[in-house]
């Protein structure tokens, strides 16, 4: 921090109301109409309150002290209850609550944190935190700017969340809920729609170190995308390479873990294979589009449509079970239209995510400058 603004210790600009806090064991807490706050925000509700005014809460223990980006301070107002994991701060007349919240929310307080396993910011420690203190109107201006920028980020996040539901909405609009099939599309067993097979079993003993190739395992297959940040390798001989090499358009389906989780391979890397925990399905393109099938699986998995197929306890989607899975088949042209729309949404989402990233950077930059008096 430069010397532009005078600096004060937190203890000089706020009043600690910690002694008024009362913890309540979770099992003894009766839910009610008032919010119950802890170190990192709302913990639940309670049937009584301690405070009734705008206040600033600062994590005492269990806060994200090592990663202040995640926030260690937040504002509350109205009737509230606070447990003893958060300091309760009432700003004095010289300081604006909104401004102080912006100063503290991402403050690196590690110099004042004690305790090795679970960091604790004691009241004595917190009182020593150095805060910049511009004149009150300037505080309010800074707070207003940061609030504005923060609101932009929030809106962008809200827009992204909307986009996430858009694909589902389009699917349901075009095809109806696969669990009930209200439009009465024909169904076929999955095994008649796709040629499916499991991948290669990893056998540590058989590894010679020759012909090592990257392969996908359960963890690499996420919904509609692949996480290829850590691909493992094993030996694939010539025959196996011929049979098990992935082609763009292959649908990969998890056998265990979250059975049925699926994504369509787009040729993310040039040469890749797959392990025994995954099914590879190659749809008959006259019947089904791979991306449509991935979304169909999503609906079945998320809405319990697989429950008759997999067992509730040992969750496995075996080849046997996958082959008989009833597969709703709208006309393939309609499926392709859906896939086009999904691709459009995906592009939109990519752009929006980039925009969110920029807004995050904008906020950090504004915050950084604000307290140095450079705004």
């Amino acid at each position: 921090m430069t010397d532009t603004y005078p600096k004060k210790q937190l203890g000089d600009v706020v009043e600690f109301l910690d002694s008024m806090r009362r913890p309540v064991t979770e099992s003894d807490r009766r839910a009610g109409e008032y919010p119950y706050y802890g170190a990192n925000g709302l913990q639940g509700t309670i049937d009584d309150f301690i405070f009734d005014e705008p206040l600033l809460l600062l994590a005492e223990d269990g806060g994200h002290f090592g990663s202040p980006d995640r926030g260690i301070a937040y504002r509350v107002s109205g009737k509230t209850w606070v447990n003893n994991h958060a300091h309760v701060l009432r700003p004095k007349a010289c300081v604006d609550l909104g401004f102080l919240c912006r100063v503290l929310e991402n403050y690196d307080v590690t110099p004042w944190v004690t305790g090795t396993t679970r960091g604790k910011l004691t009241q004595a420690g917190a009182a020593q935190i150095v805060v910049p203190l511009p004149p009150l109107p300037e505080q309010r201006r800074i707070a207003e700017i940061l609030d504005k920028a923060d609101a932009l980020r929030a809106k962008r996040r809200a827009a992204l969340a909307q986009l996430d539901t858009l694909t589902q909405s389009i699917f349901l609009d075009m095809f109806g809920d696969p669990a009930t099939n209200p439009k009465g599309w024909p169904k076929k067993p999955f095994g008649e729609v796709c040629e499916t097979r499991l991948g290669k079993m990893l056998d540590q003993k058989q590894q010679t170190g020759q012909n090592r190739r990257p392969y996908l395992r359960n963890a690499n297959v996420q919904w509609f995308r692949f996480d290829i940040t850590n691909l493992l390798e094993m030996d694939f001989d010539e025959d196996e390479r011929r049979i098990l090499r992935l082609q763009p358009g292959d649908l990969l389906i998890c056998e265990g873990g979250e059975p049925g989780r699926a994504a369509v391979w787009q040729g993310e890397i040039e040469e890749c294979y797959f392990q025994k925990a995954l099914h590879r399905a190659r749809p008959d393109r006259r019947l089904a589009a791979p991306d449509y099938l991935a979304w169909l699986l999503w609906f079945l998995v998320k809405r319990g449509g697989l429950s008759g197929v997999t067992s509730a306890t040992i969750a496995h989607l075996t080849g046997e079970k996958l082959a008989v899975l009833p597969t709703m088949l709208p006309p393939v042209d309609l499926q392709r239209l859906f896939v086009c729309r999904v691709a459009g949404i995906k592009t939109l989402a990519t752009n929006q995510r980039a925009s969110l990233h920029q807004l995050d950077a904008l906020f950090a930059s504004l915050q950084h400058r604000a307290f140095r008096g450079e705004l």
Partner: protein
Amino acid sequence: MITGHIKSRIDQIWNAFWSGGISNPLEVIEQITYLLFLRRLDDLHTLEENKSARLGRPMERRVFPEGNDGIGKDGGRPYDDLRWSRFKHFAPVDMYAVIGEHVFPFLRNELARQHGGDDSTYAHHMKDARFTIPTPALLAKVVDLLDAVPMEDRDTKGDLYEYMLGKIAGAGQNGQFRTPRHIIRLMVELTAPQPTDVICDPACGTAGFLVAAGEHLRERHPNLLHDARLREHFHHRMFHGFDFDHTMLRIGSMNMLLHGVENPDIRYRDSLAQDHAGEEEKYTLVLANPPFAGSLDYENTAKDLLQIVKTKKTELLFLALFLRLLKAGGRAAVIVPDGVLFGSSTAHKQLRRMLVEEHKLDAVVKLPGGVFRPYAGVSTAILLFTKTNSGGTDQVWFYEVAADGWSLDDKRTPLLPEDKLGPVPRAPLSEDEHAKNNLPDLLARWAQRSGAERERPRTAQSFCVPKADIAAQGYDLSLNRYKEVVHEAVEHRAPKEILAELAKLEEEIQRGMKELEGMLK
């Protein structure tokens, strides 16, 4: 019912053992069991004494012979000194010497011999009794505390022992753990033992199932013990329990004794390893929760079981065993791990097919995952079947227990007051309370399984499935295979609506950015 006062007395005894250096709960129970047995012997002797005094005749049966036991100097101690009522007044050091050097040898050798023909289960299991209480002080304290516990009433004795057994719950090894009492009671209610039944638990542990069956019979058939033939059957031929752990056998037989069964057949048998010649088709009711852990070698498995199903899995071998033990027409309620219901190995399928096609599978009761917490998190079900050798399965009744009255976490705290717990609560349950304890509803619906239950839809908590459907599913018995999920209509907003929302957000973001720009000028 035992009172809080008696409970706290028992707790004191346990604490005395703990601070006295015996911390293994099984060992504590074992030592207490010996002492309780001694107290009973004394009571029996007193009873005979009183009888002889009243009738003015010499004693018919003496538990403690006349004269001295001949151990040590001067011909040993008088047998009378080995009686509870005598040694409890001795000084601790003397008492310790008498019990260690005279009473236990008496238990091990003399007792079985002098009873001659009457080698009751109890005497039998005392053969290798070991006295391990470490100090005279601890012994004196425990004897003192036990002496103050009222043991006159059969109910009290039984409950008291049950209460103590509750403390050994944590001692599960090799897949053994105590079955919760309310689940035992449920299974007993479902099978409704009759006065002429011959009941077997081939993995009996503390004999919980047999005890509950006995209690059920006393309650539902109050005249049972007034009929000489039935009384004889009840005391000598009705109850059979096997285990391969000697400590458990002692505890199990003591549990039966304290619940007023004179001579149950609680004996050493390695149920899966020993051949079953002489045991097959002897029983009309099997109640069991066998340990289902791991697998056996073919060499160590009874050949007659392997003939039924070739497998190494203990849970399947136990099922084969039940079929082997049962008489035709005999019924069973047994707990199996979930895997038995849907496992895809040949042995799994073969056994399920056998149950459905060759015998009569009555019901599958799916238990919630936490029933055996905190000892085991396994998912289990109760299988109810009748051995017929000729099929007879028509419809199989399924019930999914979602709540058994206790929380399903490691704490297992009761969710209802005591009079609303268990399968047969004293007070009726409301709809809300049913959601916390399904067992009374289960029992009521079980009675309706051939009637109203047939009409229930597959979306309900219980329903019937015709045999043909089960055969079509490859004899898969998991409830989920037949249960239909109610699909709520998805509330989804139309794409247009979402797009409009997005457009609005977009516009706000644009405007916000302009404003911010203005503020920074």
